[in-house]
């Protein structure tokens, strides 16, 4: 299908391109740096709690998504982007192996339609699902590509959210759903008693002073008090806490540090210790060779690997060329 619409574009006068931006091969994994307020719910002030060692095995499904995009042509100086997003929920069975329960994907084009020539726009809209980038002033390709990245990111989040909500409906009585990223982006997710968000990035600062120090210097195998996250880009109310999977001393302050999101309810306060305990067990196996292995749970890594194995191969940089990559 991709070949057909690209050929239609080329026939309409678009100049072919094969630029694969660095950010296009993975998710944009940085939350915008911002400050947010937090109310400590478990203790009088943010404290540290040792996570109990013993943790029973629980039935869990894991959700993750991927996005890939590349510039396939230029109409003058306006880039036309081809994008692919996919998400999957893989359920862990009694044999400790993951099997796909749900998956979905979407392939589409991204371009500022208003900036395209009439023929080129017609060719694009005739052959492809297009996400428009409106209100972009004429510029060099850089701002357009940044806007395209955000559009692809949004499409991926939408797909993940929809899939998560499908998965919640099919979740077993004692089964949990772990989502890679924010739980608060979906009202249904945020309200579910057995949904957890696992956040690996720390763009949002919830605390200051001693509380911040305690939160970010948690010892290995400890968690913080549960707090209510307010502000930031949390759209729905959730409880949250920090959990240290690996010793950070000698590495980096954020090494092995996760922030967990769960339903804003009293039950979460009671369950935080036990949940932290079985999350701690998810450290092994380590998700190497991913550079984020200290924070990336292996099942999430496996879902990502699964999705990449099923993604169209022509999004990747051509392996035949031994020349250095170039591009905008």
């Amino acid at each position: 299908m991709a070949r057909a619409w690209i050929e239609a574009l080329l026939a309409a006068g678009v100049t072919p391109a094969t630029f694969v931006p660095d950010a296009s091969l993975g998710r944009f994994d940085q939350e915008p740096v911002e400050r947010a307020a937090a109310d400590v719910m478990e203790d009088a002030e943010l404290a540290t709690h040792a996570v109990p060692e013993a943790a029973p095995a629980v039935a869990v499904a894991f959700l993750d998504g991927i996005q890939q995009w590349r510039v396939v042509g230029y109409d003058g100086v306006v880039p036309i982007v081809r994008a692919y997003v996919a998400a999957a929920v893989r359920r862990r069975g009694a044999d400790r192996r993951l099997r796909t329960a749900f998956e979905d994907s979407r392939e589409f084009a991204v371009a500022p339609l208003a900036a395209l020539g009439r023929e080129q726009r017609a060719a694009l809209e005739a052959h492809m699902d297009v996400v428009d980038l409106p209100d972009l002033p004429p510029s060099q390709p850089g701002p357009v590509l940044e806007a395209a990245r955000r559009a692809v990111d949004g499409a991926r989040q939408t797909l993940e959210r929809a899939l998560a909500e499908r998965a919640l409906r099919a979740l077993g009585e004692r089964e949990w759903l772990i989502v890679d990223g924010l739980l608060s982006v979906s009202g249904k997710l945020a309200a579910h008693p057995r949904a957890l968000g696992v956040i690996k990035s720390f763009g949002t600062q919830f605390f200051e002073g001693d509380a911040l120090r305690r939160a970010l210097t948690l010892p290995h195998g400890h968690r913080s008090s549960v707090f209510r996250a307010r502000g930031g880009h949390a759209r729905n109310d959730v409880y949250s806490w920090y959990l240290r999977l690996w010793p950070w001393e000698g590495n980096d302050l954020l090494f092995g540090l996760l922030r967990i999101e769960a339903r804003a309810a009293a039950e979460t306060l009671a369950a935080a210790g036990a949940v932290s305990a079985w999350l701690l067990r998810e450290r092994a196996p380590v998700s190497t060779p991913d550079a984020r292995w200290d924070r990336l749970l292996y099942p999430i890594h496996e879902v990502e690997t699964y999705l990449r194995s099923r993604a169209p191969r022509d999004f990747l940089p051509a392996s035949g060329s031994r020349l250095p990559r170039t591009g905008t």
Partner: protein
Amino acid sequence: MIDKTRPAPIGRVVATELKPATPHQFHFWTAVETSIGIGAIVKVEEGPERVVYGVVTDGFAYSDLQTPLHDVVGAEGDPVRAAESPTVRQEIRLWTAAVLRQVPEEPLQPVPLARVFVATDADVAQALRMDAYLTGAQPTGIPVGLYTSGGLEAPVYLDADFLLGPEAAHLNLSGVSGLATKTSAVEFLLGSIFQHFPRHKGKVAAVCFNVKGPDLCFLDQPGELGDEDRRRYERLGIAPRPFERVRYFAPFKGDGVNLNTLRTHPELVGDVQPLVWGLAEVLDFAEVLLNRDDIDAKADAFIDFLADRVLNRDFDDPLAGRHRVQTFADLDRLFRSIFDALETSGRSDMWRTHHIATIRKVRNRLSNVSTRCKGLVTDDGPSSDLPWGAFEDRSVYVVDIANVDPLGQDLVFARVVSRLREGLERRELGVDAVVVFVDELNKYAPADGPETYVKKMLLDISERGRYLGLVLFGAEQFRSQVHRRVVGNAGSQIYGRMDMDELATPAYQVLSPATKIKLATLPVGELMVRHPHFTQPIFVRFPRPPVLRGRDGVERFAPAADLPFADAVARQLMRLDRTVRPNTVRDLVEGRDEQDVRRALAETRRRRPDDVLAYFRKVLGSRVAPDAARERAAVPPLGAITDEPY
């Protein structure tokens, strides 16, 4: 019966830059839990018009673990914790397969990246090109075992044209001892040949040399078979029954009356015929008996002189007198006459251009033969031999030389095989093809060592036997220790469990490491088969042979103790005539020279008269004449061993 049930796909061909699919090899993955393994035959299908058959030669399992250190980190150095991780790593079962056949054969292309299926019965026949000889008006398939993998089981056939000639021939079996590789496989295969050898190809018989223990002594006795064995026989279309026509031959022991075999139980010994040869039989093969240093031109010339001018002729010599040499005893008398005459005359050390030292050397060696091979070679009296010219279709002739001196074994082997060759050449053996089974081939045709007559003869069979119908089934523990032209000329090869040191030799370089490991750990009853129609080795299972194993045979039919001379004579006469009374025989032989008794017994055995006792009594009273002089047919010379490629 061909099972056409179509299985579900079990894998998919994958190819990378480092591991591409080629026209002769491909890689595929399967689920972690899969029924296939090394040796499994698989089918790759790209639509109905392109099919590739392959056999699995190697297997790999790996996970997404980048380095073992990461596993240690994840488990914090504790193996117990490693096993407790809530998720197991993604892992793969990747297999390498060698292409057996591509359909269509042309154009020959890399294997398509398509679905992989376990082969069905019909696929196995296609993959191994068995369809060429299992179908048609005159099929020539000989069942060799069952290919089993993934719950499927398919009979595998050898092509009689390539097993017994004329297209190719000979079978070589390798394997460590005691694991049902060699003897059991040959017993099973001979049974299969006898039941499936196509009638249009003529008559076939087998001559088996029993060179150790009781291995081949009970081929006519039923062995124990389990239900699984019977099921396999049924699947192969072979009736599980012992050989119907088996004839046993064994030389005597030193006493000349007790048979030198483990088949001496009273119920069975009656089937064993003595194997006794005289001077005429031995002199044709003097080269076998004399070691390489002995065979100088002078000795050779003197032996030729004896054979051409003296043996079985009225020989009149001015010096030695008149002689008619038909036995070793006659020959010795001639020698003594020559020595006496030369000593008396004191004229010269030469007799008829032969130096006395040469004559003495030949005399020593020949008398040594009758000493070392006492019981096989008779000094005097008639011989007893295989039924040359009267071989019967689908019969086994077992020559038991297990307890014979190595020199005697060589003699038996050389003479029997040479006579078989002569008989087949002249089409007067009685059958059209003969399978000769020789165990311990590394002893008779070693890769290095002296050029013996036996070795030359084995080379001759290997290289030219297929045109005659003389087929060598050779077995050995270590194939690398057998002359390369003997094993190289074997069209079919069977391997049982192998020794790892042996597998490390260059002869096995073509096998993958996994195949070698499988060979080194093969269970009892499983074999690897190579055959001209199969482009890759195939593993098969075969049922236990339906005959009594040697070990069990000597327990069930315990060998009888040697009888006193008179009783042994009586037993042999009773074999000819059950009414003969032992006491009568004892009285007859009482006080008689044992040599005279042996001669009389041999003559009686040879003549098989109606009144056995009367005839024995009659010939015992007079000197028994040796066999009538036969026309001496020189054995065609064998070529020297050269390094020319086969």
